[in-house]
């Protein structure tokens, strides 16, 4: 065993990269759930984003266009969910699950001719001097642009929910859609916009996987990342800053277990692989033990269908 071969600096730097796809997906899902909608289709939207972004980047040679198409692809798929749940008032859990299955199948079909192809490399933030600062350089200033976009989105969502009128309306819709409706807010419109934002974020997360982290396309490459994103939102008790923490924790464990293996530590990797889920369960148990904490801080109208006639 030789733990000195694990460099903390590089570990932090690589966990930031590893966590970016799930961070993007979970910050999007947080906004969706804050508006009172439970979309379990994150995995499906991520993988559609992964293939849409990959195909567009390969086709045009531009990763930026790839990311745009990924966001559009994710948002387009989420519109299907929005249509079904907001207009036809279908069950959100069932619709979300169907969306995941649909996304996985559709992406496999779309990706048939993209297996084994190299995508164009996306730009890194190569600041001349700052990137070379000993510890801060690799950790903060030499990543792919998606890492910074994800961080900016987290900060933006936090600010939006806490300090803007729009954020207040979104939260009101999520807490009590009837009251928000009585006040004259367009509940369905707000929710559709939130759902599309969540879809776009999940799509970006998928593209971060297929264009930056791997970078390659394979069928089913998200491999459960969407479900982890859903777990992170609950783990974070619907708070943006904690989503960041959760995503880095999940990403960190994934990177750490490989690092420990390479350093020759003989803990079965299964323990580390299951640890984030164990933490999620423990956090849920601890939080739900305090009943007065307003039921886990969950939006009160989460998962409930809204119809204006009521």
């Amino acid at each position, binding site marked *: 065993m030789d733990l000195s071969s694990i460099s903390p600096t590089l570990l932090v730097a690589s966990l930031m990269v590893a966590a970016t796809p799930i961070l993007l997906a979970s910050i999007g899902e947080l906004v969706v759930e804050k508006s009172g909608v439970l979309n379990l289709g994150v995995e499906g939207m991520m993988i559609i984003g992964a293939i849409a972004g990959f195909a567009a980047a390969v086709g045009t040679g531009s990763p930026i266009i790839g990311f745009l198409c990924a966001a559009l692809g994710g948002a387009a798929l989420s519109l299907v969910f929005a249509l079904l749940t907001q207009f036809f008032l279908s069950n959100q859990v069932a619709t979300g699950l169907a969306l995941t299955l649909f996304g996985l199948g559709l992406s496999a079909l779309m990706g048939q001719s993209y297996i084994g192809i190299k995508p164009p490399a996306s730009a890194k933030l190569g600041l001349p001097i700052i990137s070379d600062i000993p510890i801060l350089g690799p950790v903060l200033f030499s990543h792919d642009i998606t890492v910074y976009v994800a961080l900016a989105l987290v900060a933006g969502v936090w600010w939006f929910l806490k300090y803007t009128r729009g954020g207040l309306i979104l939260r009101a819709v999520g807490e009590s859609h009837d009251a928000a409706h009585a006040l004259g807010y367009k509940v369905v419109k707000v929710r559709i916009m939130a759902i599309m934002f969540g879809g776009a974020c999940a799509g970006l997360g998928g593209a971060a996987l297929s264009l930056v*982290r791997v970078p390659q396309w394979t069928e089913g490459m998200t491999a459960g990342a969407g479900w982890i994103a859903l777990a992170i939102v609950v783990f974070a008790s619907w708070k943006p800053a904690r989503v960041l923490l959760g995503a880095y924790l999940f990403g960190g464990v994934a990177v750490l277990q*490989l690092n420990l293996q390479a350093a020759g530590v003989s803990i079965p990797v299964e323990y580390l692989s299951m640890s984030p889920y164990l933490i999620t369960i423990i956090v849920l148990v601890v939080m739900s033990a305090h009943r007065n904490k307003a039921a886990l801080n969950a939006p009160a109208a989460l998962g409930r269908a809204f119809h204006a006639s009521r």
Partner: protein
Amino acid sequence: MNMKTILASAALAMTAATGALAEKTKVGFVYVGPVGDGGWTYEHDQGRKAVVEAFGDKVETMYVENVPEGPDAERVMTDMALKGADLIFTTSFGYMDPTINVAAKFPNVKFEHATGYKQADNVSVYSARFYEGRAVQGHIAGQMTKSNIIGYIGSFPIPEVIRGINSAYIHAKAVNPDVQFKIVWAYTWFDPTKEADAAKVLIEQGADVVLQHTDSTAPQAAAQAAGNVITFGQASDMAAYGPMPRVSSIIDDWAPYYIARTKAVMDGTWTSTSTWDGIGAGMVGIGEISSAVPADIKASAEALRDSLADGSYHAFTGPLNKQDGSVWLAVGETASDYGDGGLAGMNFYLEGIEGDVPN
């Protein structure tokens, strides 16, 4: 009448029917990854295409990609047998028990299982001596590394993979006594995400050579992004990543074997056999050593390849000790294929490799 007999008689009826109607020999292939993986499955599919080319109208091939190693594989094989396949190649280690099970239900269908060790009257096994190629890789890697750290991405801790690690290690050690191996197990044959992560971790921990026993080109991409890291194509040439990071490769050439076995089925001369060929027979090829490797290293690597090919040198020649220091091969002794301490069941690291073989 139980299910087994129903299935068997159905298969008999179908093979008889197809035999009477058409002269075409049907050959099925079960793949563990997609044919576009650029590695293992890609080469098996090249073998399939060679069969089509060799026999034209007389043969009909079918294949199924991305078949998980487990009960699902049995379903796919049964389906192929019911569709009238005369010969089925199952091309991954994990198909071993499914192949044996399905073969028992279809005695008239011939099965060929790659890299396994369980034979039956209608099940042959075949594999290639990849460890000979690993010897050449280790020889190049040991001399090319500057950090003296060589990263190795393992798939599953099975004899085939452990043989490769041992072979690469002893040949790297022979040319560079300071060399150290860092091994990460990915527990998958094909998962670009995991393979890329594993390669990145190894590179972060100082490896400037990454060897892989997984099938995708993702580690090559990770090495390319990192810069001064070299890799070797696995199972296929992976020439798209040359001359850097890919400096050479192990190429599996299944085509001659697939053609010969299909011919045997057509002629009715097929019998259950165990084939294990290496560089000499052409089943293992060493890909072009790229310009990134200095000429003298290239020359000695090619000399090693040729000595393995003509049989004048065995990749596992004593003195070699096991990891715990006990003697495995005495001076001048070469490893046997089977039996105690044989290559087929190798489940131990050799002396000098750190870490344990996972269970």
